[in-house]
């Protein structure tokens, strides 16, 4: 099953490129000209999202440097102990929505200290693998079209992340505890 999925992951992009180019040639689309026309947008998009990225990434870097996340983790630890959740996974839960590289760093840290057989490693792996960096997605996608009033998008993202955490804890408890 994994092998098939890995194979699909490897082949999907080459197949998309082949299909698109072949369809283009068959339909007499000037593929080189259209490619360069579309590619022009790449630079503009990247430049356009810089201000949004700076706002989000700087604010989150400051938060991580201040030690606020460790403080929050300490405050929440007794609550989570009741649900049989290892305290080591707390910083991961908090950082997950904020910073992709940060979450990855915390995860490798947990995996290396707790070791391959630990329940903590399994729980952390499921938490990291099942979610996305909410604030990064918001900054890039809304930044690219210049939207500053996000309405309820932030709350949907964060609530879904929270539901994901609860689901990860429950599923992990059922399967590995």
């Amino acid at each position, binding site marked *: 099953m994994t092998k098939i999925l890995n194979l699909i992951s490897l082949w999907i992009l080459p197949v998309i490129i082949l299909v698109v180019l072949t369809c283009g040639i068959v339909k007499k689309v000037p593929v080189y000209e259209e490619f360069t026309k579309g590619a022009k947008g790449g630079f503009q998009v990247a430049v356009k999202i810089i201000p949004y990225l700076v706002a989000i990434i700087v604010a989150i870097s400051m938060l991580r440097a*201040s030690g606020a996340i460790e403080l929050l983790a300490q405050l929440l630890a007794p609550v989570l102990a009741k649900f049989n959740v290892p305290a080591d996974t707390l910083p991961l839960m908090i950082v997950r929505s904020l910073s992709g590289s940060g979450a990855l760093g915390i995860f490798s840290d947990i995996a290396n200290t707790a070791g391959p057989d630990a329940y903590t490693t399994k729980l952390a792996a499921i938490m990291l693998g099942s979610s*996305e960096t909410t604030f990064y997605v918001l900054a890039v996608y809304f930044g690219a079209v210049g939207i500053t009033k996000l309405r309820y*998008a932030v709350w949907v*993202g964060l609530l879904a992340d929270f*539901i994901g955490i609860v689901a990860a804890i429950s599923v992990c408890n059922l399967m590995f505890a």
Partner: protein
Amino acid sequence: MNYIFYFLIVISIVIGAINGKLQDVVNSIMTGAELSVKVAISLIGIMAFWLGIMEIAKKSGVIDFIAKLIKPITKHLFNEIPEDSPAIGDIAMNFTANAFGLANAATPFGIRAMEELQKENNKKDTASNSMCLFLGMNTAGFQLVPTTVLAILIGIGYKNPTEIIAPTLLVTTIAFVSAIVLSKIFQRVSRQEVQNDKNS
């Protein structure tokens, strides 16, 4: 977002000062700003490539074909945009790329989808319901195989890393469905608010 931005920074400075880490907080402004530009710059090349491919896909009718395939689903989810909006094809490509863990390709598709949704949007500085739904689905991070996580697990000598795949898929599906349901609930509530404003 204004309050989130404000509180993130105020909390950082206040807690940093209490913890005696104010110097780190100040330094992180510099490193954070630098990182933001690096992230954006690193996107330029791959973004240009996929936007180029997508332009050919649009002209040759590939996107229209994909859009037709998934229309029965998107018609109900994205009910505020026209059924044959070009955004549908981009949304489909975005989810295919995400599902297979190809974040580099997913971002340009997603941005194109946002640009198309923006064309249907009446207030250009405010997110539309379709945009919020699309974002919610993206932040839930639906993925068939968590490739990065598996790589790390193999790296530390995890004996059977594939046992992680099924539970991760289950959890990510729950989060993904929740994001859709939550978006629809918020959409309904915010519509009522708008109507109440009109009445008063």
